[in-house]
Structure formats: C-alpha cells, structure tokens
C-alpha cells in the first residue's frame, strides 16, 4: 500500500517539498492571499493541461493549444462586441473545439502524426488569430464576460472555480465513463482497442476536440483577466501544459496518466514561477532553475515508480491501468 501511495503521490511529495523550501526562503509565500494568487495563476495552465492529459493518454500530443488560446480569446471578443458576450464566448469555445476537430480529423483520418499535425495547426491558428485581429489587441473593458476572470464567489476567484470544475469533470470523464476507458485503451494498445470494437477515429477526434475546447475556455479566462485579447499571447503555453502533464507522471507514450497528477504538476510549475518572483531571482537563473527542478521532479518520480513496480512484482501481479482498461473494454 505504501509503495502504491508513493507511486501515485510521488509528484505530490515533490510539490510539498518545493512548497516547504519556498516557505523557508520567503515569508510571503505561505500566506492566504499568495496561495489564492498562485491558484488563480495556475488555473489557466491547469485547464489547458487537463485537456492535454486526455490527448496524451491516447498517445497523442497537442502543440496547437497556445495558439488556440489566442484565437479563442480574440474571436470571442470580436463576436461579443456587436452580438453580446454570451454569444461571443460560445463562439470562442466552438471555434477552439473546431481547431481540435481539425487536429483530430488529420490525426484519425489523415494518418498524420499528432506532433506534425499540431505543429502545423499551431502556426496556422496563430496566423488566423493575427489575420482576424490585424495583429492588434482586441480591448473590451466592459461586459459580463469579465466575470470569468475578475469576479470572486466569496473569497474564491472565478478562474479557480472554473479550474476545479474542469479538473473534477475531466477526472470523472476519464475514470467513470465508458469513453474514459476507451481513451486509456487506445493509448495502451491502439490495435487491440480497434479489434475490440472501439472506434479509433472517434476517440482520437473526441480527445482533440476536448483539448481544443478547454484551450478555448482558458483563452476566455485569460482575456477576461486582461480585459483584452492578444493575437500573440499564449506562445509557449503548450510547453507549460505538457510539462504539467509529464510532471504529474503521465507517460508521453500513452495509456496511462491521471488528472490528479497533472493538477499537482501544474501547481509545481505555478509555485516555482511565484517563488522566483517573490524572491526576485534573476531571470537568467530562473530559466536554469525551472528546467533543473522539472528534470529533478521527473527523475524522482521515475525512481519512486521503478521501486514501486519492482516491489509490486515481488508482492503480486501489478496491473497497469492500460491493461485493465483494455480488458474491461472487451466486448462481453
């Protein structure tokens, strides 16, 4: 049991260690207002990373989410100006889901590898955002949409509530629905999943649509936080999302991974950025420290997992979630 705990919660241990170190280094770190501040900052990456987790579990990757964040925000505000905020926000998310559909269709039907597909759509979507806005920020300082980024329910800012809802929803979807089971099965062994009657194309399109829609939601939250949308924002956000997923113990090979782990991963990145700013670390050293901590965290996670796996092998058969998923999805 303790080994299983270590395997599942190794990244949480990393988060707590980094948190403890930051609390010692800065007396401003462990305050309520700063922790709420960190959670609010993490929310955008966590929402994107939830979608990224689902995509990566199928063995895919989505490099286009950073551009989709920009496109969704810009499109939403452009539509919201004449027609109203609700229509605008809906349009933004639908457009982002449409980008996801394009990704999924290219991967599933076009057989283009996900890395190449989304590398291409990353630049296409960025270009679309620039064309749409003529390269200028879209400013909208009033309207109901600001609620997404600037309001609070009680003491809790809305972006945090949206993050929590997204994470719980994604966790439920992956662990409690038939679709979730299929997603693990496709990532574990696509051929076996196909033979067992799962629609490979259907699942692939579904995950990219979800990934795109969540990137769209993140784009709306970001726009609401800034009272404006920038066509050039979100550059490199895909890397933060992928880092959060990997830090959370999800394998880039597909077939395994948890939303819980990704949540922890997103918070590790969030408190690192926060800590660097609180302590006024030179931007040059930040780059080194951030990379080093990410590698270190993944190394520790690997060692812990290896230990847990060999222990499990001695103690009895260990079953990877992918195997379980593949089995349970067989026609009965």
């Amino acid at each position: 049991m303790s080994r299983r705990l270590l395997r599942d919660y190794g990244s949480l241990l990393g988060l707590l260690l980094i948190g403890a170190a930051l609390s010692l280094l800065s007396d401003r770190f462990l305050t309520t207002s700063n922790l709420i501040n960190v959670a609010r900052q993490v929310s955008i990456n966590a929402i994107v990373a939830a979608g990224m987790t689902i995509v990566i579990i199928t063995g895919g990757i989505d490099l286009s989410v950073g551009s989709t964040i920009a496109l969704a925000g810009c499109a939403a505000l452009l539509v919201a100006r004449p027609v109203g905020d609700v229509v605008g926000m809906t349009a933004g998310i639908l457009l982002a889901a449409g980008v996801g559909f394009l990704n999924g269709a290219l991967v599933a039907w076009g057989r283009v590898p996900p890395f190449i597909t989304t590398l291409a759509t990353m630049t296409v979507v960025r270009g679309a955002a620039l064309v749409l806005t003529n390269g200028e920020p879209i400013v909208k300082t009033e309207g109901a949409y600001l609620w997404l980024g600037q309001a609070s329910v009680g003491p809790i800012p809305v972006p945090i509530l949206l993050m929590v809802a997204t994470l719980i929803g994604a966790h439920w979807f992956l662990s409690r629905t038939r679709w979730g089971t299929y997603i693990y099965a496709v990532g574990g062994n696509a051929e076996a999943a196909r033979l067992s009657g799962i629609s490979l194309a259907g699942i692939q399109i579904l995950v990219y649509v979800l990934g795109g829609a969540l990137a769209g939601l993140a784009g709306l939250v970001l726009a609401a936080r800034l009272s404006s949308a920038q066509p050039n924002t979100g550059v490199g956000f895909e890397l933060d999302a992928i880092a959060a997923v990997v830090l959370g113990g999800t394998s880039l090979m597909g077939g395994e991974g948890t939303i819980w782990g990704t949540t922890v991963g997103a918070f590790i990145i969030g408190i690192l950025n926060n800590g660097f700013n609180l302590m006024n670390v030179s931007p040059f050293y930040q780059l080194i420290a951030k990379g080093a901590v990410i590698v270190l965290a993944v190394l520790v996670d690997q060692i812990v997992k290896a230990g847990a796996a060999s222990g499990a092998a001695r103690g009895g058969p260990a079953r990877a979630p992918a195997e379980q998923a593949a089995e349970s999805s067989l026609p009965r």
Partner: protein
Amino acid sequence: MGIRGWRIVGIAILAGGLLALLVSSGQAAIKIGFSVSTQVNPFYKAMADGVRDEAKAQGMEVTILNAEDKLEKQIADVEDLIQKKVDVIIINATHDGAAAVLNKAAEAGIPVVTLQRAVPGAKVTSHIGTDNVVIGREGAEWVAKALGGKGNVVVMEGIPGAASSEDRKKGSAEVWPKYPGIKIVAQQSGKYDRAVALGVMENILQAQPQIDAVFCFNDEMAMGALAAVKASKRTGIKITGMDANKDAREAVTRGELAMTIALPPYNIGKNGVLHARWIKTKEQPVPPRTVMAVEFITK
C-alpha cells in the same frame, strides 16, 4: 550528365521561368526586398507597413518576407532575395548571425540597409533605428524624476537575452545609482507578454508592500502590470511602458499608465525605403547610421 542530372536542370529551368514570370510583372521599377524578423509584434508590423506604403508611394517593387523570428528562415529568405537579384536588401535582423548572409548579398553587389537591429560584422550601407540603450536611460531618468528621486521601483524586463531587453536594461542600470533615494525592489522578466507580465506583477505585489513605480520595457507588459495592479486595488503606482501601442496610448489618456515611449517603427520602415532609393539613384548621400528620436507620451 545522367538522366537525373538533366531532370534537375529541367526542373531548375522550369522553376526559373516561373520565377521570372512572377518577377517580370512589374519591370523597370527599383526592386527592393525586405526581410522582417516577425509580424507577431505590432512594432514590426508597423515597420513592414512603413516599408510597404513608402515603396508604393515611390512606385518601387517590394518583396516582404517574414522570418517568423527564426534565423534559419531569415537566412533562407535573404538568399532568395539575392537569387531574385533585388536592387537593395532591407533587413530587420532576428539575430547577429545574419551577418554572413548579408555579406553574401554585398558580394553579389546588392547594398544592404539594416532597420532597428544593427548587425555587427556585416557590410551595411545604412543603418536606421532607435538606440535601446538610450531609450532605457531616458526612460529610467523619466521615472526617477517623476518620483522626485525617491521611491520603490519594479523593473519589468523583456525576453531574457533579447538584445532590445538587455540594451534597455543596460541603459536604465546607468541611471539608478545616480538616485540614492530610488530602490529597485524587484527586477523580473515579463517576456514582453501581457499574460506573463500579469502573473509576474501579481507575484511581486504579494512580495512588496510598497511600490511607487513599475518601469516596463514594453507596452504589452505595462498593460499586464496595470491589470494586476487594478485587481489588487492598490493605488498610487506609476506604470510606464514603451512602444506607444494603441491601447497603451489610450491607457495614458485615461490616466492609468503614467507614460509610454513612442518609437517610430513606421517611419523607420519609410526611411529604409527612402535610403534604398537614394542608394540606387544617388540623388542624396546616404548617412551610414541614423538614430531616430523617440517621444515621451504622457497625459
């Protein structure tokens, strides 16, 4: 020569013919090529607009190629312009590494005009731009004076290692020691990005109970810092930007930003075309280095 060799020759002739067809559609005019570092940033968009508009006004033929911030692409772009035998190459370089390909252009007898970013080691006929060290220095002086020589200042740098950011840092660092009452309480990078600067400023607000000014190396970050300060409900913080983008200017008018510095990217682009013309027509001597003045925009 084998079949393969002839096939390559055939393809080359075909490609050449196609290119010639494309090029011949506007003969006689001076042909200029402009390689611009990126079109994502409004600053460089305005520069390209300046080049395009002035070339049109002068009846010149212009090819604008976007390097998408990648040196490799820029080198390939310039090589294409050399092959195309343009009369003058205007370049807004992504990197010092463009020097070699610019010298190739010079060897091919094509004069080079650099815009905004000088390329050390390259044979350049004319350079036009603002000087980021000077901008950093003058901006910091403005902030120090606006605070009456006393107060806590946050410096928001651009992309770590980017020449514009490092030069502005260098210029501003010359100023702060002259004002013992000014304390730099935080100096962090907002990566020239509004969303990044928002998060960085929120974190700094958590750490610093007293902030009197935020000195940002571009407007995008100033707008991000402004959003963070507004959300924190803290007042009396003077936020300054650089570049004078449209919404930053409006924020200055509303009194939300204290100041922004207007660089003239559009006029830099226009001047580049003008110099290209003078190089060809020799109607005026072309100065080897032109430093464009900046303007402080305040309410």
